[in-house]
């Protein structure tokens, strides 16, 4: 089973198993990951930074995701993504995402 590692601001991390058809956001909510408040299925409250080396292996964000990313509350970086749009792509075994300082 592929995994996602969530890394918090203080450097602590938690790795959880997630099916390839489950979004990183839903995996975070199901496991009570602090700092990803995407349960509202509302926009731009599930912002994460993808590991810089892995970012290029992911499908590029859609136009809509890019527009939403322009509105995120935390600092926007080149590797900013919305976790509701992210899944762990094959053949990646573990996707690493960093949780931003704030969501809203």
């Amino acid at each position, binding site marked *: 089973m592929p995994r996602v590692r969530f890394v918090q601001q203080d450097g602590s991390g938690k790795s959880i198993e997630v099916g390839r*058809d*489950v979004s990183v956001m*839903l995996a975070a*909510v*199901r*496991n*009570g990951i602090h700092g990803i408040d995407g*349960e*509202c*299925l*509302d*926009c*731009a409250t599930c912002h994460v930074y993808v590991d810089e080396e892995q970012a290029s292996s992911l499908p590029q964000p859609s136009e*809509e995701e890019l*527009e*939403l990313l*322009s*509105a*995120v509350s935390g600092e926007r970086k080149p590797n900013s993504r919305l976790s509701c749009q992210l899944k762990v792509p094959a053949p990646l075994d573990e996707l690493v995402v960093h949780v931003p300082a704030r969501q809203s």
Partner: protein
Amino acid sequence: MTGLVVIGASYAGVQAALTARDAGYSQPITIVCDEEWLPYQRPPLSKDFLLGRISEQNLILRDETFFEGKQINLVLGQRATLLDLHARQVTLAGGNALKFEKLLFATGSRARRIAVEGADFDGIFYLRSVTDAIDLKAGLANAAEIVIVGGGFIGLEVAASAAKLGKKVTVVEASSRLLERAVSPVLSTFLLDTHLRAGVDVMLDETVASFKGNNRKVSAVVLGNGAVVHADLVLVGIGGVANDEIARSAGLRCTNGIVVDAHGQCETSDIFAAGDCTNHFNRFCESWVRLESVQNAQDQAKAAGLAIAGARAPYENVPRFWSDQYDVKLQIVGLAGRYDRQAVRGSVDDGRFSVFYYRQGRLVAVDSVHRPGEQMAARRLIAAGISPAPEQAADPSFDLKSLVTAGDKAGA
């Protein structure tokens, strides 16, 4: 058993329990729910679930392991029937009783039933729960002609899904425009055009007089004007009713929902309520409101959960709503209510615009279609009480975020 008892395991019930636990409430917590399902996502039920894009399993938000980890006892498939405030006890349908120190109602709302001849025929559906959605999805698979009664959020979302599935869809709406209670005529007209383009037939200012059937299965809808529309399946979406009967019977004050303060507390101490089942005074709406939304359920439940744990932070979030229909992403912040002025930013024809609503010069609500950046800026503006001039709002070259930033600095 003592501690906290929560009735209802959807967004509000789960959030209140989690917040109370995380804020240090150390007594036992029990969530009792009449549904058999683990807590699940509701917004996809009218959209991706009907379209087969999300499985039943992926609707689940939290599982048993999660609740065990939080030391929350989840009791599914058990309906609460009676509250005895004096004895501090909730009775379940099977006869068992739960004692409590504090109680939270998160009983939600149910679909308003249509009361016309033939309303009990098979083939007439409502949509609230996952079991409703499973039934509706199965029904749609065997239906070609669909009639939707009600042009509100649920009706229009199901209409869009059914049209995408290739069904012939007719929407019957009693008022003169779609989503009348939620959005302005600009948006209603835009949505009407969107549905018409998708091949959906929309009948405005039209009521349902009765249903016709064969062998107790619906076969047609008879309209108020006498016209008959053939239907293999009918979806009724004419609003919701608060599930406040248990609270009402126990003597708690209920007026279109259980009346609560900014901490989700009833007038009786240690009794709380959150979500669709409540009526609260909302300062952004400047009125008492009963809201049916995920945002309201979660944010109100957070305030209640904190109060249960002995911490206090009032519920004062700006109401938010969203809806997906076809490729239209509609986001709403605030309640336009009795607005007296509006400003349109962007292009309605291109399907990328926001409508700003003002009341006595103050920005009270913004609807956005494919304008998430503007919507996020609008949320911050309304929450901070900052109102761009209508001329600024209508000018796409004016940077709304500059006002938010200025407000942040002024407030810092």
